[in-house]
């Protein structure tokens, strides 16, 4: 890539910091140039977020249909999977999977629910009612 071809499409990161890119000058010698971002990258990121939004919406519907517990919704909302959530709560993965069932969730003691509330940074009430506090 030539120095003058380093893309300068302002993206999410570009508003906060510029990125270092290696590119060649007119003599073919490598040098660095700062980039504001690149459309191709931005749209790849947008695509990833669209997938996330869809997964959240699906999860929400499942909770409303009583096919899953609110943990599924907050797990998707925090971009987590079962492995990550198990890591943050200290439960085993098989336990987390069990807690995704509404019946099991409803019978969980407060002490266990608290671990989820902490992992998602929520109050217990918000966890149970699937309320989002955008603070």
């Amino acid at each position, binding site marked *: 890539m030539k120095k003058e071809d380093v893309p300068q499409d302002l993206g999410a990161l570009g508003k906060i910091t510029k*990125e270092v890119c*290696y590119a060649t000058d007119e003599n073919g010698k490598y040098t660095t140039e700062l980039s504001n971002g690149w459309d*191709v990258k931005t749209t*790849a990121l947008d*695509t990833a977020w669209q997938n996330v939004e869809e997964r959240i919406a699906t999860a929400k519907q499942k909770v409303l249909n009583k096919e899953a517990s609110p943990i599924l919704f907050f797990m998707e909302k925090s*971009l*987590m999977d079962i492995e*990550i959530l198990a890591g*943050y709560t200290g439960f085993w993965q098989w336990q987390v999977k069990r807690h995704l069932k509404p019946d099991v969730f409803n019978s969980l003691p407060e002490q266990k629910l608290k671990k989820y509330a902490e992992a998602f940074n929520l109050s217990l009430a918000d966890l149970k009612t699937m309320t989002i506090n955008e603070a």
Partner: protein
Amino acid sequence: MKLDFNHIQAAHCENGVTVGLLKNSGVKQITEPLAFGIGAGLFFVYIPFLKINNGPVIAFRSMPGLIFKRVCKALDIPIVRKKFSSKEAAEKFLNDCLAEGNPVGCQVGVYYLPYFPKEYRFHFNAHNLIVFGTEDGNYMVSDPVMEGTNIMSAYELERVRFAKGALAPNGQLYYPKESKPVTDEQMVSAIKSGIKRNVFNMISPLMGPVAGVNGITYTGKKIKKWRNKLGQKEAGSYLAQLVRMQEEIGTGGGGFRYIYGAFLQEAHAYIPNDDLLGISAQFTASGDLWREGAIQAAGIYKGRLGSQEDFNVMGDYLLQIAEIERKAFVALKNIKWQ
């Protein structure tokens, strides 16, 4: 207390941390391309049957931590590397290091990194930064992908050092044990061994079908089948993931090729063999193709393109890249070192 430390911005976090720590401990010659090349950072692997963020796992880099380790080993610099099971012990050890005057590299997760834009915060645990001071319970942080330094509270730092999930950092920190200058002869031998290692990783038949240049060919062939196998939309998401792994998470594909090209030019200053310059140009050509491929992929995940022919073109980019890189690494293998 703030240590005397120069923040250095880099294209890739682990290169940047390696350069920052080593420059600080007396290795004047080190630059980002040299660290990347000596650490044999260029790699490719497609891991079948495994998924991250619901897409394929494609890595363009060696395992996190390896670049720092290899560079220090090649330059004969002893290192300290520690993981912790207790958060208190991890913080105390960090404080002790700072009190002794050592800036410290830390492996962190980006999901809770306060100065990162929200759009970039996925659960990705192989990011690296340097802590170089503490004041009123806050820490001064030099993150190599940022233009300037940042401040994090003790709680914020603890949270990213103990992020969970794949490649969980477990508070991992590392730094050079002693400060010492490095001679140019050492640089020459480190450069040669770095190139040899990278040649092995990319073209040795021992690396199997999914790693190195073979892995690029393998992925190219897979991509052609994605549309029929996964359907248009899912295949598009897979390609978006490929591009994110390639260009975003540590400037993988194109960016890494350019850094490697820069490395070979800088190597030429230590080892005046003109073949290095020619091979450097081949890596530039490969980097350009990775970027053209990313544009093609963007056409597909934006929905502008989408026929089987478009997927074939995409796959062919990777096949073509594999061919160029195979030739370049064979040429590196055949260099006669005096």
